């Protein structure tokens, strides 16, 4: 073993230089600010919602979506710990995404009902296919369009359900799913526009 003070100080300096380079790079090269973390969190919500729309096993896919969202939310909150606005935006986005996921699951579940009206069934399938494309390339305008289509589907299902209790029972999932999906997409537009404070969280 050598007891060389100069060598010890040189090594300490080298350690500090190594740390300094890493610190400077992490702080300056596309730093992971709370705003960045929130943006990435929202992006993940939308991308995986798109996968949820396209999946065939909806019940387990919804459960997995809820699981993964919760984990991602926890990780994002740990990154934006000091920023209350970012925290609020995360919660607003997560609540909207969970509600949209549930609405999609309801719509998909209703498609399996054999006695569903063919026109409503095809309109629902069309909406889900377009929604899947929209979620791959999300935009405020496209969210607005899909929301309008979801509300229209809800209205059509409601009109068709006026026939009686049996129709309401059959179309319940479509009415509830379409209306909540429409409102979720409208809220998603507001979140994308940076108006998350307009939403009760």
């Amino acid at each position, binding site marked *: 073993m050598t007891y060389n*003070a100069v060598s*010890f100080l*040189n*090594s300490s300096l*080298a*350690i*500090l*230089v*190594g*740390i*300094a*380079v*890493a*610190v400077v*790079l*992490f702080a300056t*090269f596309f730093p*992971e600010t709370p705003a960045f973390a929130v943006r990435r969190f929202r*992006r993940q919500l939308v991308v995986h919602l798109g996968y949820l729309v396209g999946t065939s096993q909806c019940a*387990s896919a919804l*459960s*997995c979506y*809820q*699981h*993964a*969202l*919760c*984990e991602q939310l*926890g*990780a994002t*909150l*740990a*990154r934006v710990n000091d920023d209350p606005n970012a*925290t609020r935006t995360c*919660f607003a986005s*997560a*609540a909207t995404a*969970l*509600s949209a996921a*549930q609405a999609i699951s309801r719509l998909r579940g209703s498609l399996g009902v054999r006695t569903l009206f063919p026109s409503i069934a095809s309109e629902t399938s069309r909406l889900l296919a377009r929604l899947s494309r929209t979620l791959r390339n999300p935009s*405020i*305008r496209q969210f*607005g*369009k899909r929301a*309008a289509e979801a*509300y229209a589907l809800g209205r059509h299902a*409601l009109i068709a359900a006026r026939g009686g209790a049996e129709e309401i029972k059959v179309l*319940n999932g479509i*009415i*509830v799913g379409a*209306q*909540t999906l*429409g*409102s*979720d997409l*409208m809220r998603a*537009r507001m979140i994308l526009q940076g108006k998350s404070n307009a*939403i*009760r*969280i």
Partner: protein
Amino acid sequence: MKAAVVSVPLRDWLFKKPEWLDHQTAVALTFAVKTFAASLLALYIAFWAGLDDPRWSFLTVFVVSQPDSGLVLAKSFYRILGTIAGVLVTIALVFGLAQYGELFVAAVAVWICLCNFAARAARNFGSYGFQLAGYTAAILAIPAALEPSGAYDLIVARFTEILLGIICAALVSRLIPVHELSPKLVERVRALTRRADSLATVLLDPAADRERVIAERTEFAKAYLEIQGMQRSPYFESAEARVLDQPLRRLTQAAVELSSIAEAAASHLGGPLPRAETKTSHGNRISQTNESSNEDGATVSALVRAADERDLGVARARLRESMAAFDRGEELPHPNLGCGLWSDPVPAVLTGIRSALAVGITSAFWFATAWPTGPTAVVVAAVLCSLLASLEQPDKISIAAAATVLIAAVPVFATQFYLMPLAVDFPSMAVALAPLMLTCGFRVEH
């Protein structure tokens, strides 16, 4: 399953510890002593076997040690895998590129970039394995490339020393009275189920305080994240822990499901179906409920509320059922869900690029100035970038790391220059190291 769960109280009774041992200070002291003992054992065996540089065994024990035994074993397992990958890449780099300095450093930077990308994208100890693969290559390859004639011996020696450290840490962690992870995990999952129930109640209470709602949500998300981090580790601990794995996952899943449904229901309560028409940016007029009549709007709201209440009822019932089945030690016939977590590629790519740049910049500085301790700076930059890859708020942690190095330099200097020269044999060396290393162990537990 039943036998395993029923046997837990008997085991608790047999291995009953005094209550004071669970006090935080006592736990930290036990951990410090246990880790120091393991590191001394590793050091002694390394000296006895005549290994090249025994301090690596000593250091490895401190790196892999964790207060909970399941964590130590899981960490050790992934460390071995990561070290093997790092060693193989080091062999390829040193024997293929050591004579081309710039190309060699560029290859090291690319490897660290790839490993840190994967470390950021993966979770828990899988992420740790990738980190290890990255910085093992940096730690081994750079000194080996500087001395190509002894490179193979150096690589084999480091690998043996690290392996010895891992084995000693795992052995002592199992033999000396330890904190087992599975009881802690069971306790956390039970707390999560209670929290899910309370979160659902708060979310659906229109009079609930906004700050309380945010606090409940934050606590729930953090508790869930913590459980996710722990859930894979008890697998390495015992057969009992492995048996409890699926029921605990099911319970966690039921808690998450309840809170998610409550979130969705709460967002519907908070005005999801406003009656006013909204004009979208592209000019479509959207009526958010039925345009024709308020009656339809009321029908829709009633249907949504009824559907939410039904879903909430089902979720609450499932949580209660899972809880009761867990308490009775019974299996529930729910399918096992193999849910994957989300990985965001963009931060992972940025982390990889930052790491490669750090290695590149420090290497350029080393080459340009011919600084004798330049390789140390390169290795430290690579290791730190690897360690920071998967952490939250890496900039703050790296500043804390710099401050720790500055503060620790004083006791390390005192130990190395005043205490170590007094050591004449192994026991006296252990005594000389004890103040510094026991303090480190104590601080690590805290």
